[in-house]
């Protein structure tokens, strides 16, 4: 089940939103509605869903309605029409108590300008969500101290927000969101107010925490590079409408319209895309327990000449070629002893730029291994095709 599911979500700002909605359904454009009634269509017929554990980025320039959209998701703004399902329950239909309960348990939010309480210490800011739930002082402070340490702010518990730098303040914001233990993180331009180096640091921090905690993240940004770096999938918004949803690769490869392509044309793909974007999910794998026979059959099924070997927890063990497998099977050698020893390994955050060098030397597909686990496979073709396409675009612009 999707963690967040948004259906036909519309928000019209103004005195008579229902009238505006009627006009919109009759096919009038936003400009016409604004001209005739003075009402602004903030978000128009948005549809998307976010899977558990996914980082879903909504990207758009200022005024595109992305900040409105994220506030419709936790109902800081009431929608004009449409549905928002959080774990299958429509938040737009909830009564007050249920809404408060859902915000407390399921949705945590991080804000562009941090939104910290200036009269409270870091500790009391981070514990704020639990305090609202009526959790006793000792427990909430213990939990808050733990997340403060997680985001690297140990020792600052009794500081006030005004004594911290922007980056540290946003770490407090992040810690506050994590302390609540909700599955969903809503991040509204969370890193946009930070300077570039700190921003990159925080992006890496988010990716690190995400790998550890597997939250579902809805991330708003106006920065394409940030969207490409963080997003498992990206929705691009313009004038209140979602114009394209796709993986970073899909958006770079097949921009849905001129608007999107004007965004992506200047991206140096080799410096933006990393292995995680071009890698394929390793669908066909074998374990030692499967044995050589199964390995050979699997390779034959998909027409591959080699296969990656993992254990039950997906820990990377090595690569097995079909020739070695057949030979070993005939000679009765265990699988462990015939694995290819010079297989290239990389991690999922290696940029394409660096991957080229590895690919040039590699005889076999490159294994993408993170913390010992096999997370994907990169073939030479996928890297090169990405880079060639990037080059073509550069020529066009020259």
């Amino acid at each position: 089940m999707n963690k967040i599911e948004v259906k036909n979500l519309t928000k019209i700002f103004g005195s008579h939103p229902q009238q505006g909605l009627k006009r919109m359904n009759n096919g009038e454009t936003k400009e016409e509605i604004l001209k005739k009634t003075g009402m602004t269509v903030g978000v128009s017929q948005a549809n998307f869903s976010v899977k558990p554990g996914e980082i879903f980025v909504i990207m758009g320039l200022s005024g595109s309605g992305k900040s409105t959209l994220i506030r419709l998701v936790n109902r800081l703004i009431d929608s004009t029409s449409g549905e928002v399902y959080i774990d299958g329950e429509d938040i737009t239909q909830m009564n007050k108590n249920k809404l408060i309960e859902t915000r407390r348990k399921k949705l945590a939010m991080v804000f562009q300008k941090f939104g910290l309480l200036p009269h409270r210490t870091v500790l009391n800011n981070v514990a704020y969500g639990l305090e609202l739930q009526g959790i006793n002082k000792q427990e909430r402070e213990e939990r808050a101290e733990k997340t403060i340490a997680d985001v690297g702010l140990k020792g600052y518990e009794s500081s006030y927000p005004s004594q911290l730098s922007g980056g540290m303040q946003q770490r407090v914001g992040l810690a506050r969101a994590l302390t609540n233990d909700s599955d969903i993180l809503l991040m509204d331009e969370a890193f946009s107010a930070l300077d570039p180096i700190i921003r990159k640091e925080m992006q890496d921090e988010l990716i690190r925490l995400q790998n550890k905690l597997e939250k579902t993240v809805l991330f708003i940004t106006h920065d394409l590079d940030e969207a490409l770096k963080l997003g498992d999938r990206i929705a691009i918004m313009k004038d209140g409408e979602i114009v394209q949803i796709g993986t970073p690769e899909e958006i770079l490869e097949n921009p849905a319209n001129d608007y999107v392509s004007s965004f992506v044309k200047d991206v140096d793909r080799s410096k933006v895309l990393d292995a995680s974007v071009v890698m394929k999910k390793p669908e066909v794998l074998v374990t030692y327990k499967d044995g050589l026979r199964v390995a050979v059959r699997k390779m034959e099924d998909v027409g591959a000449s080699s296969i990656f070997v993992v254990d039950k927890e997906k820990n990377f063990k090595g690569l097995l070629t079909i020739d070695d497998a057949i030979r070993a099977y005939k000679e009765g050698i265990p699988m462990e002893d015939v694995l290819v020893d010079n297989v290239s390994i990389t991690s999922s955050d290696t940029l394409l730029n660096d991957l080229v060098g590895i690919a040039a030397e590699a005889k076999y597909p490159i294994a993408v291994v993170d913390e010992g686990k096999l997370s994907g496979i990169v073939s030479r073709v996928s890297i090169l095709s990405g880079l060639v396409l990037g080059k073509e675009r550069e020529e066009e612009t020259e």
Partner: protein
Amino acid sequence: MNYFNFPLEDVTNDFVNNWLLPNFSGFFDEISVILRSFVDSVTNVLIATPAEVIALIFVLLAWWISGKGVAFFAVIGFLFIGSIDLWDESMQTLAIVIVSTVISIIFGVPVGILSATNSIIDKIVRPVLDFMQTLPIFVYLIPSILLFGLGGVPAVIATFVFAAPPAVRMTSLGIKQVPEEVVEASRAYGSTPKQLLLKVQLPLAMPTIMAGVNQTIMLALSMAVVASMIGAPGLGSTVLTGISQVNVGLGLTGGLAIVVLAILLDRITQGITKKV
């Protein structure tokens, strides 16, 4: 210009004499009794307590809240008031200031909160406040006497009308000034409206609210002379006597005592504003 003859005077008198007084005099009497006992008990406490004790409390308070300078001023100020023999009058004035300020806060802060959070209430409250602040004081002194008799009670009512608006306005302003993102953050984490008010809005609005309270106290003191015209005892009546006897010296002593009280209360409440 007399296109429509509008007998406002007659209508008002008719309304007050033939409807308001007969129907509500009991109600106003009750308010009067409650307020009188409030004013009297505060006055009695202030006068019954030895002057030295009160002076000492104020000096320590001034020291703790606003520092040495203000404490020193308090010592000199109280010595001055004692030496010109206006201690009891000062305490009577102080009692009326305290009671009207307390009532102004009791009414003003909640109304300010409501008008900050509800635009309809805000639209109603604003013109009422304008009215309270700009209507010449003597205009509502007349009905205050009619409804509450002479003495401290109508003085408190008149002072309240004049001094409460800043408490309302500054409370409302303070709450509206709380940064939108902080309010959003609190709501996003599931605060109830009450939690939002108590944990976020009021603490952050407190300096502004205290500035409003400071203004209320100042305005209440400035009403001292006017209040004495309707029979309130205190420094105002000293000044009034000075005026009626063309006694420049008496007028000055009363006036200076008011100034001393004003400066002292102002510095102490400003100190509180900075502390919170």
